[in-house]
């Protein structure tokens, strides 16, 4: 009975979102304040009923209700409770419910933190999000009902959660990624609301910026978590594989990165409006594309959910309508988006435009590389795959150019900067960066490599130009402390995110070229050397976990004779499904990771195994944390709050006007 309540609650959320997707938008068009004022309560209602629905599904997972189809397919009575609960998003139906619930969460946030905006605008934004909710819930009800029962004979036990998913990464990565993904729907809704009203001004950009920043920051963390999880769970030491399911989040992220920069120009200078709107549409399309690719059965991988063609067609329909519709609206409204001001050829506007062009080209190349094999297969029936070298070939040079501009951009001025001034500012810094790039890796690693030099030089370039820029900005202030306090929070946000880029660059450059690995067969007592590290295999013993049996090996690790923490890699066999799984052992460090994965046991107690040394790999994720932090800090800049206070008076006035009509 209880799962049916969840289903019922989902249907109620559907009905409310139909109202949300229509009344407020019509109200805004006809200036009907009563209809517009329905937007906030309706958004809250959709959130409550979707929350109820997902809560009931979680209850079914927690109580092992195997009469519910997806519980039987994705869970098992032996699973620990935290995996039972999170098994909810271990399959297509549950994860889509989570996705839609996240959207309603963003809706609720918009309805709460939008007091500064005019009611017409808020109702249009919430209305557009309501339309998206209608499409998503309809999709669930029509093709992928999470509350489907197995009647009349439910299985005695579930067939277990995919063993590769039984890990901490699975608890945190999908919700974070979805939250970031769905956050771009909000920015999209802002853009569509602005197009609908025909008023694309600096105010619109100011309203969207904090939302775009937060969505971008969450997506950054979501992708980084996925990369970290793949690194330690899949166990072949990679942090990015250019897999077709990794790429759509990256495409969205690249468009999102372009968007948050372009929004800055639109807010501060009133130019690039149409471009910014287009980027908002593209970022949102990227998130839908990700859903489409993983849920349509176009490809098979860890991320791909069951392959039911009707689902693919349905999502393609949503994708087509959303993207086509918004581009049509865009085409109609484009003439309205006139730039208010001009700018010179060497100016911050042009630097930011260059940033945008580079990011969009990067996104387009990833998009082509991802979709080309699928299109090729559809046209010729031949199967091909495009390997990582393609992506690296395009991506690396683009990012190098991007970072060069990243150094100059913040230093340049709006409207016009003299080339001579810029040159005088950065010439010495460029030389210094180059010297640091050559010398530093030599001092630390005693080895020359082009990759290390390039990445360290670029990182130095970012940090040095940033230092120079801050010094310039506070030069006229009485004291350094006063000067630093006078800089706005958004400036600190930007610089923090840029430091993140520098940190990540070092991580990528050094880990790509100084990592080493060795696959060997060792008998107990034997050891293997890798660089200055020595791994001694002590032997293995059988043990039993909550829902698996396995072997645990013991390794004594030392470096130049000094012993380091021992490592205990495992090899497990999960009881419910009988699938084997490797649990690698990692000794994580700031400057390097050591890790071991076990292969198979040979006669006489020997094991095959691979040992890895990965210098600086943590810096990749550390850099992502800085970027996300920067994006978040910038979103809390004073000027967004000041606006809120100013406008709340206006809001009260409107509510006052509403009272007589409502009673």
């Amino acid at each position, binding site marked *: 009975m209880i799962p049916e309540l969840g289903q019922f609650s989902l249907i109620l959320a559907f009905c409310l979102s139909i109202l949300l997707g229509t009344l407020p938008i019509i109200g805004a068009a006809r200036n009907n304040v009563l209809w517009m004022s329905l937007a906030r309560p309706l958004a809250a209602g959709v959130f409550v009923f979707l929350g109820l629905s997902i809560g009931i599904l979680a209850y079914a997972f927690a109580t092992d209700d195997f009469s519910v189809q997806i519980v039987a397919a994705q869970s098992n009575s032996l699973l620990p409770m935290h995996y039972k609960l999170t098994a909810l998003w271990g399959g297509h139906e549950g994860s889509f419910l989570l996705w839609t619930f996240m959207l309603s969460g963003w809706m609720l946030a918009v309805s709460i933190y939008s007091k500064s905006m005019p009611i017409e605008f808020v109702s249009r934004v919430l209305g557009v999000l309501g339309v998206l909710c209608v499409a998503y819930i309809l999709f669930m009800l029509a093709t992928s009902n999470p509350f489907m029962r197995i009647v009349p004979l439910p299985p005695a036990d579930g067939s277990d959660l*995919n063993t*590769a998913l039984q890990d901490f990464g699975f608890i945190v990565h999908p919700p974070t990624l979805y939250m970031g993904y769905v956050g771009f729907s909000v920015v999209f809704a802002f853009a569509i609301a602005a197009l609908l009203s025909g008023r694309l001004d600096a105010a619109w950009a100011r309203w969207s910026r904090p939302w775009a920043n937060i969505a971008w920051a969450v997506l950054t963390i979501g992708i980084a978590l*996925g990369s970290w*999880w*793949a690194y330690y769970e*899949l166990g072949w030491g990679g942090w990015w*594989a250019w*897999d077709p*399911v*990794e790429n759509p989040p990256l495409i969205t992220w690249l468009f999102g990165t372009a968007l948050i920069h372009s929004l800055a120009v639109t807010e501060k200078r009133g130019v690039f409006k149409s471009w910014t709107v287009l980027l908002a549409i593209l970022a949102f399309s990227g998130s839908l594309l990700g859903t489409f690719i993983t849920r349509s059965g176009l*490809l*098979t*991988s*860890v*991320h*791909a959910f*069951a*392959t039911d063609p009707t689902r693919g067609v349905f999502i393609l329909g949503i994708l087509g309508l959303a993207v086509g519709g918004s581009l049509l609206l865009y085409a109609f409204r484009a003439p309205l988006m006139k730039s208010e001001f*001009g700018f010179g*050829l060497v100016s911050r506007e042009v630097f930011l*435009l260059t940033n945008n*062009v580079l990011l969009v*080209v990067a996104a*387009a*190349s990833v998009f*082509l*590389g991802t979709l*080309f094999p699928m299109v090729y*297969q559809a046209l010729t029936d*031949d*199967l*091909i*795959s*495009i*390997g990582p*070298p*393609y992506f690296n*070939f*395009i991506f690396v040079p*683009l990012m190098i150019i991007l970072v060069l501009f990243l150094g100059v951009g913040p230093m340049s001025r709006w409207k016009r900067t003299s080339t001579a001034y810029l040159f005088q500012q950065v010439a010495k810094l460029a030389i210094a960066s180059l010297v640091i790039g050559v010398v530093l890796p030599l001092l630390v690693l005693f080895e020359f490599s082009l990759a290390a030099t390039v990445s360290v030089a670029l990182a130095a370039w970012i940090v040095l130009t940033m230092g120079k820029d801050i010094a310039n900005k506070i030069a006229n202030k009485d004291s350094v402390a006063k000067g630093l306090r006078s800089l706005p929070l958004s400036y600190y946000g930007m610089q923090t995110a840029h430091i993140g880029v520098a940190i990540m660059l070092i991580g990528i450059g050094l880990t790509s070229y100084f990592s080493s690995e060795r*696959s*060997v*067969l060792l008998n107990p007592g034997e050891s293997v050397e890798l660089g200055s590290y020595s791994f001694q295999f002590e032997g293995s013993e059988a043990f039993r976990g909550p829902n698996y049996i396995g072997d645990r090996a013991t390794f004594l690790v030392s470096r130049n004779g000094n012993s380091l923490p021992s490592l205990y890699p495992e090899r497990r066999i999960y009881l419910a*499904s009988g*699938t*084997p*799984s*490797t649990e690698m052992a990692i000794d994580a460090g700031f400057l390097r990771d050591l890790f071991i*994965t076990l*292969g*198979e046991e*040979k*006669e006489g107690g020997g094991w*095959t*195994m*691979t040992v890895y040394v990965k210098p600086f790999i943590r810096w990749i994720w550390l850099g992502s944390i800085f970027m996300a932090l920067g994006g978040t800090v910038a979103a809390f800049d004073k000027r967004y709050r000041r606006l809120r206070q100013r406008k709340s008076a206006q809001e009260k006035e409107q509510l006052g006007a509403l009272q007589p009509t409502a009673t």
Partner: protein
Amino acid sequence: MKPHRQKKLGIILFIALGLSVSVGLILYAMTQNINLFYTPTQVALGEVDVGQRFRIGGMVKEGSLVSADDSLQVRFETTDYVHAVPIQYEGILPDLFREGQGIVAEGTVDVAGVFHASRVLAKHDENYMSQEVKAALDAAGVDTENHPTALVQPES
């Protein structure tokens, strides 16, 4: 032409030039990095040039797996139930590699018809079959619908 028009034209030309250069590079890089996929039958009949990098997909033939006791060398055969191709690999096989199940291997074939794999991908879940293996079995006329085994690539 008015100066601001001229500037606009300059920017548009700059963007167009940048875009066409990058599209050119993208297409060049793509043609350099395409891995074609072949079935065991195609490989056994010598349709692939020696030394060319490609992917092969099929089932691991029952009883064909031989792994050395003193090294990481493994040898097995992959089959579409019409022809079988011997595969030589040095390294650790994926968790879910088993006889009678589907795999995809990447590498080159030598004069003797032995495939030297640099990477072996096995299924990651019981319920799915990779497109490559399904295509290979379809091409060989094997009924994949009723075949119990399946796979996906272990890429994240």
